[in-house]
């Protein structure tokens, strides 16, 4: 039995503490999801290992090869307000700025938002469409995992016991245009009914190059909508293909009925959000 609340100073100490614990100990980032699910340590026998003191996890940094690193412990407020992120990944900034409320964003971290692995995690779709990789410290050293492969189910990820997500590596790509859209019943304090991240890069010949579309809250995990992407790639960004792509969204998602919305509504909205976002980009092109 380890201590119920532990604030280690290094990743290896954190990992040791985790692995020595009896499986009821959780890594603790901002706490905004964990404290609601489990309450403070002690009530249900669980413990927390705070990642707050680990160095290097709380920053946004330029890295070689035109990459940007976003530490996992970077607060959602910082992600939303970072100049670097606003410049290179505005859809991610918008997503981070849409989580919960200002105070929740002050506490919550981008790593926590992702590791909580809610199907509706707002930062997941933009991370996926920007081609981000998760940087993970494990017992056997560091590994990088593409965000598309990170989630394995509701509240589950591919992290092994003891693994610590240290941050995200995102490639800068000035040719990319991206958008984030969130649908909910309120304009704040809202768990998404559907969320959308979409990025688009035109090739030199006026056709769509790489297209990435990711949706939240419409499947057990945030998902890429590959069928729709393929319809667009190699084709001009025109209404015909946009409508076809939007129509294809339904094939790649598996929404459920819950208290927030029915599966049918989610399915409809997912397609329409993709359509409207693409049409808007199309209109920008013709302005």
């Amino acid at each position, binding site marked *: 039995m380890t201590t119920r609340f532990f604030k280690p100073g290094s990743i290896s100490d954190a990992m040791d503490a985790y692995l020595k614990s009896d499986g009821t100990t959780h890594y603790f980032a901002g706490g905004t999801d964990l*404290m609601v699910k489990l309450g403070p340590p002690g009530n249900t026998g669980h413990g927390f290992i705070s990642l707050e003191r680990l160095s290097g996890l709380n920053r946004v940094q330029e890295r070689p090869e035109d990459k940007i690193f976003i530490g996992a412990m970077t607060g959602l407020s910082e992600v939303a307000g970072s100049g670097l992120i606003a410049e290179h990944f505005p859809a991610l900034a918008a997503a981070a700025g849409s989580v919960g409320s*200002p105070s929740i964003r002050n506490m919550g971290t981008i790593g926590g938002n992702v590791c909580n692995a809610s199907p509706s995690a707002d930062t997941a779709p933009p991370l996926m469409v920007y081609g981000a990789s998760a940087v993970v410290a494990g017992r056997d050293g560091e590994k990088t995992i593409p965000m598309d492969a990170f989630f394995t189910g509701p509240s589950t990820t591919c992290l092994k016991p003891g693994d610590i997500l240290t941050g995200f590596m995102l490639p800068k790509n000035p040719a990319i245009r991206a958008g984030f859209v969130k649908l909910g019943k309120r*304009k704040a304090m809202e768990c998404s009914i559907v969320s959308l991240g979409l990025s688009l890069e035109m090739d030199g010949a006026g056709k769509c190059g790489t297209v990435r579309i990711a949706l939240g809250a419409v499947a057990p995990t945030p998902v890429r909508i590959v069928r729709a992407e393929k319809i667009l790639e190699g084709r001009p960004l025109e209404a015909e293909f946009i409508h076809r792509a939007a129509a294809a969204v339904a094939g790649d998602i598996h929404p459920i009925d819950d208290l927030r919305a029915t599966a049918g509504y989610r399915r409809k909205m997912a397609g329409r959000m993709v359509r409207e976002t693409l049409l808007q980009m199309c209109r920008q092109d013709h302005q």
Partner: protein
Amino acid sequence: MEDKNITVTINTKRHTLAVSPNETLLRVIRDRIGLTGTKNGCGEGECGACMVIRNGKPVNACLIPAMACDGDEITTIEGLADGPDRLHPLQDAFISHGAVQCGFCTPGMLISAKALLDDYPNPPREQIRKALSGNLCRCTGYQKIVDAVSAAASGTVPSEKPEAVIGGDYPRRDAIEHVTGVSKFGADITHSRAAVGKILRSEYAHARIKHIDVSAAEELDGVLAVVTGADVPRGYFGVDIKDRLVFAREKVRYRGDEVAAVAAETEAIAQKALSLIRVDYEPLEPVFDVREAMADDAPVIHEQLMDYAAGFETEKQGNICTMAHVRLGDVEKGLADADLVLESTFRTQIQHQASIEPHAAMAEIDSHGRILITTTNQKPFAVRRYLSHAMQIPMINIRVNATKIGGGFGGKLEMIVEPYAVLLARKCGRPVKIVYTRAEEFLATTPRHPASFKIKSGVKKDGTITAMQAEFIYDTGAYSGNGPTTVTLCAQVIGGLYRIPNVRLDGYCVYTNKMNCGSMRGPSAPQTTFALESHIDDLARAIDMDTLDFRLKNLLEPGEKTAVGQTLVDMDFKKTVLAVADAMDWRAPITDENTGKGLACVYWLSGGWSTSVTVKINEDGSVSVVTAAVDMGTGYLYTSVIQIVAEALGLDPDDVHLVQGDTDQCGYDHGIGGSRGVFTVGKCAKMAAENALEALMAVAARKLKVSRERLESKNSWISVKSAPEKRVSFADISVERHILSGGPITGVSEYLPEMDSIEPGRVKGLSFPAFKGVTIGCHGVKAHVSSDTGEVKILKYVAAHDVGRAVNPLAAEGQIEGGVAMGLGFALSEELMIGRQGEVVNPSFRDYKLPTAMDVPEVESILVETPAAYGPHGAKGLGEPTMAPPAAAVGNAIRDALKLRMTETPMTAERILSALEEKKKAVPSGMP
């Protein structure tokens, strides 16, 4: 558990203390340091009441383990001012702008606002709304809060006193307590020996209790008492029908019914003890739908219904506990005479008061065995009466003292948490405090009745309504609660707006296996107004008449009678409706796509029932107003009533002090609700103050040797009108009276507003006739509806209310803005959902969607003043009617925008879209 020392700096003071892992920062601040200005509204980071600044940033203290805070710097509300006389500009602005209503969300709001202004000295309104979007407020509709933050940012906080007392924008007298965090709400009452009480609730919606075994719970270390129905005499209680016991005995009737309660040293032990109580249930078939519950073969929820005592006469049958009927003229003939007959059905949801402050009570037993219960309750005398009935204790042995109420809205109008605290305290011999969790609030308190309506009317092509027939069914849940009254009010409201010669109304109040629905702000008003005003809109459209013109043609005029036979006086529908139409520029056509406008009117009654007020002149000439009426958060006592007393006596409102809510010290009051604060308590206070003035005048006349008629009172002096230098002060008269003959000079008054005359031949089964103080309003909305997503965007909102006389216009606007916000929640997003087993699906602020600061539009309030002869200075009630029209007005705007009639609230985006698609499928076969 391993405690750990942490050092935290709170409001510049360093504290080193041992904390245990299960303590949150919020608990440390409230329970260990004793700073109770930081509130606990949900414990899940969803309401913002616990907002503090931690290392420069606003955070939810409920979500932070105390152990994480070692070395932190924390600012709470108590640290905002630079000392008692140097408030932060935001605090001054909140006070002067009427940004404080109940005050419970105020500390958290101020903390978020401070953090915003620290970073952005001059934010636009949209940014202010965003910064406050994690702070829920149920009272204000956010508008005055945004005003206050704007004013503080721009340095335009007014400091002068209003010129006139009546009609002056006086801030709440106790606002300073709220903005500095010193006011004490239910959960803030502490006692060093207090034990924690918790309640065990039924896991079944309908079941027989075979056996309860509490032995394991009693044996648990730290458990002080366990009580069940066996510890209480079988005393039934209830508002209209006495059908409820403190604990469920033979049967449980909903998931949440109280089965047992535990007092323990700590919350964790109490919680553990609950899990050790074994209850053997024999499940019975539950019924959740009112129509099914009304069927002959439905499971019977109250087998003894016919034996229950009731305060009025009504038919009962099966699960129907009230049948209300209104008959006027000949409906068949009226429908036959019509050019067109239209039938509509409507349904409304369970809306919850969702006050940010949860229910809380502390019970103590003194050495004589007398009970003191300190509770956040709107009706202290009723709690005393109910406790006495339910527990068969003489009333003299019960003292109920009301705390500040962090939002009532009718949710704190009944006895809810009090008896459990009392029983536990009596059994364990220590004070016991019970504070409901947010989930308990949603599971087991008294929300708004869901209702269904079937309305059929006939209309002539010229716009004359020939007949109306309506059936309405109110789902009262497991107990009747305020259901009979709600059905009665519905019958009065539905026939209160329009001139209809032939009317047949049939209302039913029906038991189901859900929580007991009660009185929420205007019980029946939003439900009925949604149904009636949607139906009326469709009637107008069916004959191609403008919906404004149709209303102007048919709305009742002063001197005309409502369906129950009440003669309307002192109100002006036309003026009120036209005020809205003007502000909306109603005649201007709307050309934008999917955009429409809608109107909805409301008829409501300012509550009656009796009250009493004593006005005492203190030795220094200041005045104490003693009343058992409490302030549920609207501020009427701390604004209008104080102003009324000050005006009557001729003194500064600052010299008026309130003593309230204590059954030992105060005269009787029925309980605060029904929009009766200013109308009834204000009137009684005026009469008491006038009596006190006459007593002062008599002394002054003797001293100044002139007749009473020659004297006047001003600024706490009584002087001779013709020779103002001849004068004597209140203080001089009062001191002399105290010392020489035993003071104080008092003015006492009792008051019961007359019931209005209705025509007994027209009604049957109603629980009361009608109150005099009719209060009316009209709202107008312009909205865009997305045909893609179903989302509604409010573009303009205008609300006019005929308030009689606005004793305090700032407070009146606050009621309108807050009512509109709550009404829009009812219209668009709020719904307490019940699952297949009778469970509440969404018992949290996360999933019960109160509008946030970013969801509520700016509201343009219009105060129409047609003085009411019965109200003080002509004032009428205003709290409740403000929330009735939004759903119908929005529904009518949707109808106008998309030719789509929504018949169910809340009109969520998904429901609108789905209705739109159904309609497209149904077209083209002759839809209107």
